[in-house]
């Protein structure tokens, strides 16, 4: 039977924004989240502050969650996964399972907001020694430390004097298979560099990069303040390897604008890991029979002017399940997906009546 309800899968920023939008337009949203709480990756990975505005992440996500939690037009299913579907646009029958059993939901349209996962720096190439050295961490690890306001060397608990970021770990790499730029890491590294300088003012921070990709306002909102106000040092040239030297890490690379090799001792190395499709994104693409791109992200079919339509009519995708996306992209895509899914259920109703 045709339905005007819309299913939103994933309770991160894109999913929360989509559910809120559907509800505000007077339609019913069913929000399915596999974890036992909403908030998505910013919550799961314990983000300290959002990029680029440095807003407290917990506070911002709580606000998004509050907008759907007490909303009579939003039904929330936590600890739940979508395991199967049949039907077509206007009339999908979706099976949702949780610990207690399964239910069949009849919905007119579906929005996937199943997000990304961070690149595992132990995969493929081990040159930075993530699993070898305690003091080599990722953006995700650093974010947790910054949130707890305990930015110390994991190896000995001491406050670091020198920290560097290595950019593009797991991104822009043909051998790894992720040829794309993960888009957010330059901004997040710079944001974390600012936070480190604020929390540990004596700590010098270096960012080794190939290109700094601080598009739009991120340039003046993060990059320039990081360099000009917080004295973060940007060095062109990615480090190639990290070696243990005494109780320090020796970061080896080339300083390309000087054309000289560099071997700089650091107390901590932060790997700016990129984005890959999450397991949920890959699984749901299979369940809904959606086309994926060569990297495993959900393919959107509308080119530059339609960033949310998938290969299956009535199924839309928003946020980082379609490829690297920042928060601004994610919520903007959620809005676009809401519009298209509401149009879908309204048209479906009209044609069936």
């Amino acid at each position, binding site marked *: 039977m045709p339905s005007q309800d819309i299913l939103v899968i994933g309770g991160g920023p894109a999913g929360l924004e989509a559910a809120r939008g559907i509800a505000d337009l007077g339609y019913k949203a069913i929000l399915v989240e596999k974890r036992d709480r909403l908030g998505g990756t910013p919550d799961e990975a314990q983000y300290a502050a959002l990029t680029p505005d440095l807003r407290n992440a917990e506070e911002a996500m709580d606000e998004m969650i509050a907008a759907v939690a007490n909303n009579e037009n939003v039904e929330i299913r936590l600890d739940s996964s979508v395991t199967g579907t049949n039907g077509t646009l206007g009339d999908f029958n979706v099976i949702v399972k949780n610990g207690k059993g399964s239910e069949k939901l009849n919905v007119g349209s579906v929005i996937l907001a199943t997000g990304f996962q961070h690149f595992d720096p132990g995969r493929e190439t081990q040159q930075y020694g993530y699993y070898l050295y305690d003091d080599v961490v990722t953006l995700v690890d650093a974010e947790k430390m910054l949130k707890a306001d305990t930015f110390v060397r994991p190896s000995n608990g001491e406050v670091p004097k020198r920290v560097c970021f290595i950019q593009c770990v797991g991104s822009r790499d043909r051998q790894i298979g992720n040829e794309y730029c993960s888009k957010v890491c330059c901004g997040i590294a710079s944001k974390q560099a600012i936070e480190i300088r604020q929390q540990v003012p004596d700590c010098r921070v270096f960012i080794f990069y190939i290109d700094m990709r601080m598009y739009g306002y991120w340039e003046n909102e993060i990059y320039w303040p990081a360099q000009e106000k917080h004295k973060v040092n940007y060095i062109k040239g990615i480090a190639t390897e990290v070696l243990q030297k005494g109780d320090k890490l020796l970061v080896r690379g080339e300083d390309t*604008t000087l054309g000289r090799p560099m071997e700089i001792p650091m107390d901590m190395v932060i790997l700016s890991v990129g984005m890959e499709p999450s397991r949920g994104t890959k699984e749901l693409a299979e369940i809904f029979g959606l086309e994926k791109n060569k990297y495993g992200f959900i393919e959107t079919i509308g080119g530059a002017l339609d960033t949310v339509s998938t290969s299956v009519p009535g199924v839309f995708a928003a946020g980082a399940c379609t490829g690297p996306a920042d928060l601004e992209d994610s919520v903007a895509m959620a809005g676009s997906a809401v519009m298209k899914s509401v149009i879908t259920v309204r048209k479906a109703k009209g044609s069936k009546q």
Partner: protein
Amino acid sequence: MPVDKHQIIEKEKAVVEGIELSSDWNRMFEQRVIWDYDLTYMDKITELDGGESLGWCYQCAQCVPVCPVDMVGSYGPRKIYRAVQVGADLFNDDYLWQCTTCANCLRVCPKEVDMIKIMPAVREQAVLDGNVPGELQEAFENTFEYGNPMGESPRKRADWVKDAGVEVPVLSQIKKPVDLLWLVECYPAYHPRGKEASQALARILTALKADYGILGTEEKCTCDTQRLAGEIGLFEEFAEENIRLLKKYKHNQIMVTDPHALNALRNEYPSFGGKFDVIHYTTYLAPLMSRLNLKNSLDIKVTFHDPCYLGRHNGEFEAPRAMLKAIPGVELIEMGRCRENSYCCGGGGGGMWLDGFMVDHVTERLSEKRVREAVETGADVLAVCCPYEVSRFEDAVKSTGNEGKLLVKDIIELVDEAMR
């Protein structure tokens, strides 16, 4: 790649564990691997008033191709940032004295890294530490002692008026308010070629029946170039003294011969309480050219060099050209680098008093490069309107073997020739 011999260090004297090594034994290669980003000096500089923006460079390198010193040497603002970021002590580095403060880097810099503020701030510390090239120190001492960087007698400052052929009113003698106070400055008062231009200007002011006067022997250096070379203390002392003097005489407007004086009075003196209506002589004369009886057609091709401190620093590009175009028989040919992108004569920011020092750092003088550019245009005359330039370019004409091919003249001399 072959070994870069420049990276071999051979000390005159090296002592290792008490044993003195001859230079044969102490030959070594300069360390190529960067072991550390020692930010000591970056911190020191960015904490100075005026030094902050050195830390803003993001290495886009737009400054380097337009840096007049880089074109004949290896200095470039971007490179300074990098050198300091890897630990160079700019306070004790030859690079510190190479910038002429021409402002062409600042013109193109997207981050507004301001060498015009950074250099004086760092140089001031070097000056306080007594770490100044000898010839520059001499210019500072001369200024302090005699009121002019050449060390000429203050009593002879107005001697040039004797050969002007016209009466030149001196304010202390005429004892009446004037419309125009003409601040002559040091090179136009003392340098032989500067004096000739001053005499020409006096004749033209007379022809225009201008109501003007000069300060005569009371006048002292405005010290803008000493300031940019790092002698901030000297500058401040002279600024206060000059402001007192300029306020002593009633006038409507100050006319300067020297763009560096224009810069000091317009942009620096106001913060010391000296707010004056100040104008360069070309700006003053350009609209009055039609009132002069220019009866001689010169029949020459002229190219014009924009002074950094008139053009880029103070935005006047048109007046000198308007003057040249108003002279009968002058065909103006522009050089490739002109107006906003004009080259630098090498005299600014202390360069005027660092010629000996600079020899070791450049393949040719900036003035020599500029003269070669002027010769390439096929011009008969290289016209200038900054008193640093006549002497610099005339020397360069000789040293580049272009004697007889190119004359260097102040615009005012050309006007005078057309009038006589």
